[in-house]
Structures are given as structure tokens and as C-alpha cells.
């Protein structure tokens, strides 16, 4: 599973990355994490609000920091 966090590197983006890593760890899912800071790529996903969570190239949400529990639900669904 490939998890990408889209964002310019602000505090919110870092927080989302932290939460996503924690969620994967708690579920025992092995995922590859990647930070996408290039605006061209971010907009390529159709995302205008950062941070955004992309799992296996699908945009899950944008413009907010989701909690660990919410991300766990998303990862579980995508992993199934």
C-alpha cells in the first residue's frame, strides 16, 4: 500500500503524516509513505487544500488533519 501526504510541509501536513504512520502501525499494515510537496503534482490530484491524504493514488480527503482512528478506517477499507 502506498500512502502519500500532499502539502507544502506546514505543521498540519506533518501532523497528518504522523497520524497516518501511527494508524498503519496500529493496524499492522506495511505501507510505503511519501511526502508530496511539489505543487504541480499536488494540483495534478485535483487538490487545492492541503494537507491531503492519498492512498493507492486515490484522494481520500483534503484540507484537514484527520485523527488516527479515522485514518485506520480508511486504510482498513483500502487494504481489504
Amino acid at each position, binding site marked *: 500500500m502506498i500512502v502519500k501526504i500532499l*502539502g*507544502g*510541509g*506546514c505543521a*498540519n*501536513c506533518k501532523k497528518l503524516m504522523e497520524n497516518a504512520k501511527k494508524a498503519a502501525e496500529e493496524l499492522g499494515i506495511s505501507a510505503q509513505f511519501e511526502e508530496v510537496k511539489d*505543487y*504541480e503534482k*499536488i*494540483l*495534478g*490530484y*485535483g*487538490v*487545492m*487544500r*492541503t494537507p*491531503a491524504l492519498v492512498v493507492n493514488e486515490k*484522494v*481520500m*480527503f*483534503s*484540507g484537514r488533519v484527520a*485523527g488516527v482512528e479515522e485514518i485506520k478506517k480508511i486504510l482498513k477499507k483500502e487494504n481489504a
Partner: protein
Amino acid sequence: MFYPVQKFADFVVFKLLNIRQGTKLASALNFFIFDTIKIFILLFIIVFVITFIRSYFSPEKTRSMLARSKGKTFLTHILAALFGIVTPFCSCSAVPLFIGFVEAGIPLGVTFSYLIAAPMVNEVALGLLYANFGLKIALIYIISGEIIAIISGIIIGKLGLEKYVEDYVFRIKVGNVQEFEEKKTMKMRLKETLNFTLELIKKVWVYVVVGIGIGAWMHGYIPAGALASLAGRHNPFAVFIATLIGIPLYSNAAGIIPLVSEFRRLGVSMGTSLAFMMSVTALSLPEMILLRRVLKPKLLAVFVAIVGSGIILTGYLFNIILG
């Protein structure tokens, strides 16, 4: 509405701490406790309400609406400035939003009306202004912020500055912009709003308390009117200087507004105080560094100059209206 809070402050100071009524310490402490509780209650209510309203809007919707209402008409600017208040985004989204808007064919001036209104009308500033000065000043804050956003956008549009946008912006292809919003039930919406409100208050509370604390200290040790000659309404440069000082300060709006009532007592006029606060919240160095990635220096300078002038004019205007 705040009668129980006053009761509580009285109880803590006179009964619990057993400080004699009428002493300086008692009145300062009583004031501090009452004010802190009152401000946090109002701040909570206002941030909650605004966040809830915002959960129905998104920049993606704004973008498609503005792109549809083609042209640079006055109405489009008003629409953009109004959307600027109600759509939520953190300042690090300014760049992708800018690119997304320009790419959708929204005129540069309209895009700026939107981008200026968003930080100009800040929910924490609004809550604190209402808590400290009442509805009238809070409304003046919103209306003047909107007017500055509308007029600045129109001027930037008229100047035809498209060539000062970094070239790569026009080459970027925006992917399919979707509404990522899942269907939300009212319960989910309320829960999200509550979480966001608590997060925000957790982020700013220190500044607010420090602000109130410094204010309380000034209350005791600096005589009223001490700044009247320096920053009163009769000093023609006060608004100008206050705006310049405010530009490099950022994110401490939460700490500055509780101080403004003390500034007032020391003789700083309302217009000067408002100008100071607006330049703190609307023109920030970190945001300019971000915007530099999409704007060439000349356009960035025009942006700062126009918004700065707008704030200064507002300051003078309110010094005349409010004294």
C-alpha cells in the same frame, strides 16, 4: 448572561482566597478571572458557529461558482470576498488555491479578492473583538475587511498584472477537482465542528491568557492616557506607523486583541488599534514567502502596497467616525 461568572469571580477572590474587597489586588484579580472566563465562553461560541457554517462551504465549490460567473464584474468581486470569509483553509493552502483559481480562468483580481478576504476576516479575531468591544466594532471589522478585499481585487484586476504571475503557474494542469466531501450527517458535522473548535482554542489559549495578563499588568502600572500624544487620534502618523509595525508580526492576533482594550485606555484611538490588528492578521511575512512562489516580486509588492493602503485608510476613517 455573565452574572454567574461574576458570582464565581467574587467567590474565588473574596471567599476562597480571602482577599479584602476594595483592595487593588482584589479588583485586578477579580477582573482577570471574570474577563478570562467571559472571553473564552464567547470565543468558543463564535468559533463554533463560524466553523459550523464553514462546514457547508468549500474552496472547490467557490472555484466552480466563480469560474461559471465569468467576467470581472463588481458582483464577482463581492461574491469572491464573501466566499473568502466562509471558506476555510489554512494559509499553507494559499498557493495551491491561487494556482487552482487562475487555472480555472478566474480573473486575477477576483482571485485576489478571495485570497485577501480569507485571512482578513479571522474567526478568532472576530470572537475576541466581539467579546471585548461588542457587536458594533465586530461588524465594522468584517465590513471594512470585505471592502478592502473587494477594492484591492478590483485595482489589481484593472492594473493588468497577469505577466507578473510566475510563468509555470499557467502551465500547470489541474487534475479532476472533486468534492472529496463524504455525505455527512448532522451528528458528524457537529462532532467535527466541536473537534476543530477545541483544537483551535487549544492552539490560541496561551496567547489569549498572556495578552489578558499583560493587559492586567498595564492596567495597574501604566497611567491612563500615557500613549495619547503618541498614538491618539491627533497624531496624523499613528495609523501609518501602527500598520507598518503590524505587518511582520503574525499569528499573535489572539494575544493582541485582549491588549487592545488596554491600548484604548492608554489613549490609542480605535482606528489605530483596528489598523494594527488588521495588518497583523492580513499581511503576514510567512504568507508572503509562500505567495512569492507564484507571484513575481513586483506583483507581491503591489499586493502588499494595496492591502496596506486599504488598512491605513480604514484606520483613518474609523478614527474620524469613532474617535
